[in-house]
């Protein structure tokens, strides 16, 4: 008995000493409830929806999410983070909604969304593990109730003045297409797949019977502020066996001309791999896009106008490669607020204007109009979207109310040959931070 007590004490001492090098543990998270409703009359199979009014069950979607994360400073200057995300409908599908925001299932699911270690050596930081990424063509989409993450290794170096060099290897991800953003599995399965699988899904849908291979991705980049008033970035990607890609961007502060004035330019080129062309027995063109943006900010007001154009025969969207080829968000300046996959589609010319205003003590307001016009080579699918959003925080509760008007040729159609009618949508975003 005495021996047992001693062993217990020894174990406790061992436990304490094992954690003695763990410092500054921070535990935080949030709980979300998102709801949306539309007065759309026809579903994607051109069937008339019975209860198609706003707030009707048939045209509403809702879901809850829970995020919990802990960061800590570990021994030898290593920093670490673990985070979990859980999705649940809370049973809303029984009464109020008929669809969900993310994950593709009404069952409750959870997964480790982050689990990484980072260490800095001089001017170089190495971050390894499951993490969120924010690069132009492979990133975590945060517009939805849950964001996709990556199993990756990222090296960042700051030896050159005002310049960050980036090298990344992306092994796996849980990105999913068709606006779902995250792929989930139930019963404790692993929802992460080899990076490129989301593209693979779509390509195999387009080319039935073909075996599209995926093997992760590499990326290198330089982001510099060495040029006066300019942030310039160059990214190169190799999505193994699928495509290589370039992304060039320069954002210039024109305060010498007029304080608050900015100008930006983007160019992207996604070049399908010869291995992919061979597998699909098809010669594929590059997907190219360019965009420019003029911005102006003064005190609490921010205005922007942008224009973009994509190449006529691009086989893929100039958008996030982590979430497939349908409904992926794009980093092009002209990207719509809600309807993704139009601006970045081939043969599309888009213009966008937006205004943000922070009315102090009242709320943050945002208005955006996007008009994407596609040529006949690309499919002749036009889309116009107008969004008005207001955000306000009440203590730890963040709220956003949004109104979206959409008129897209391929939505709300009576038949395959009809151009879709416009419809209204209202969304409510509630997030409690803790």
């Amino acid at each position, binding site marked *: 008995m005495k021996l047992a007590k001693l062993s217990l004490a020894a174990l406790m001492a061992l436990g304490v000493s094992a954690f003695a090098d*763990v*410092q*500054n*543990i*921070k*535990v*935080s998270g949030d709980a979300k409830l998102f709801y949306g409703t539309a007065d759309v009359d026809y579903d994607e199979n051109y069937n008339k929806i019975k209860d198609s009014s706003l707030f009707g069950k048939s045209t509403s979607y809702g879901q809850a999410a829970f995020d919990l994360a802990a*960061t800590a400073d570990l021994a030898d200057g290593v920093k670490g983070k673990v985070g979990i995300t859980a999705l649940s409908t809370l049973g809303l599908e029984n009464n109020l909604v008929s669809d969900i925001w993310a994950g593709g299932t009404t069952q409750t699911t959870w997964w480790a969304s982050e689990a990484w270690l*980072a260490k800095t050596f001089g001017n170089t*930081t190495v*971050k390894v593990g499951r*993490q*969120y*990424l*924010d*690069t132009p063509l492979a990133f975590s*989409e*945060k*517009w*939805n109730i849950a*964001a996709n993450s990556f199993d990756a290794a*990222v090296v*960042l170096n700051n030896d050159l003045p005002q310049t*960050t060099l*980036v090298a990344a290897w992306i092994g796996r991800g849980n990105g999913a297409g068709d606006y779902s953003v995250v792929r989930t599995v139930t019963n404790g399965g692993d929802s992460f797949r080899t990076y490129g699988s989301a593209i693979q899904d779509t390509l195999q849908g387009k080319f039935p019977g073909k075996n599209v291979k995926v093997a992760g991705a590499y990326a290198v*980049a330089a*982001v510099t502020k060495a040029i006066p008033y300019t*942030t310039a970035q160059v990214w190169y990607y190799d999505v193994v066996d699928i495509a290589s890609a370039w992304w060039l961007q320069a954002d210039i502060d024109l305060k010498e001309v007029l304080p608050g004035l900015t100008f930006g330019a983007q160019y992207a080129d996604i070049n399908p791999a010869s291995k992919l062309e061979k597998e699909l027995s098809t010669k594929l063109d590059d997907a190219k896009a360019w965009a420019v943006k003029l911005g102006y*900010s003064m*005190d*609490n007001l921010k205005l922007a106008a942008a224009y973009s154009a994509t190449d006529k025969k691009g086989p893929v969207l100039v958008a996030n490669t982590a979430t497939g080829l349908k409904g992926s968000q794009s980093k092009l300046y002209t990207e719509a*607020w809600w309807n993704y996959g139009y601006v970045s589609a081939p043969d599309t010319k888009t213009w966008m204007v937006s205004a943000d205003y*922070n009315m102090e003590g009242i709320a*943050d307001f945002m208005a955006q109009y996007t008009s994407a016009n596609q040529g006949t080579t690309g499919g002749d699918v036009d889309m116009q979207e107008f969004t008005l*959003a207001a*955000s306000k*925080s009440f*203590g730890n509760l*963040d709220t*956003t109310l*949004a109104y979206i008007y959409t008129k897209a040729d391929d939505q709300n159609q009576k038949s395959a040959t009809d151009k879709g009618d416009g419809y209204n949508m209202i*969304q409510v*975003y509630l*997030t409690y*931070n*803790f």
Partner: protein
Amino acid sequence: MKRSLFAALFASALIAGNYITLDNGKVIELRPDGTWQEVKVIKKGNETIAIKPDGTWEKVESKNIEVANKLETNAEAKFKDTPLVQTLIGTWSGDGERYEFTKDKVVFSVKDGHRTKTISGKWSVENIDEKNKTLTLNLAEGARLGFLTFGGEIRKIKIIDDNTIEDITGWDEGKIVTLHRVR
């Protein structure tokens, strides 16, 4: 007997009015035996009455209910007077982020997808890297148990000049946000 009655009355006169309103709006009574209890303060006509947990009540002068002074701990005050930290005081905005620093409080808002995430509360400086002009800030911490903290956020800010700062918190995700002072 007479003396002890006088002493008791004198003591109760001293004790009356020993009520304090806390940050959260609750009112407590500090008792002479070194303990405290929460009381409920109500208005009855023109009179203010404190209702105690033991069922008794007492008339109090509302002007005698003090408001608790704000406590600034050593951790909160640490580094606050250094020139680098003093530069932070004010409002900063840029690329979807906004900071409003006063000496004691911060309001931080950031575009996070389609929502604006806002964190507000006390702030403290965890670390200063004078060489790189970089501050590690602990914003709106909810609670602290030794080295374990709950809620809020750790942000890393680099001071460029009096009118420009960089939020380098997302540096390891390749994200650096430049903010300018809002006048």
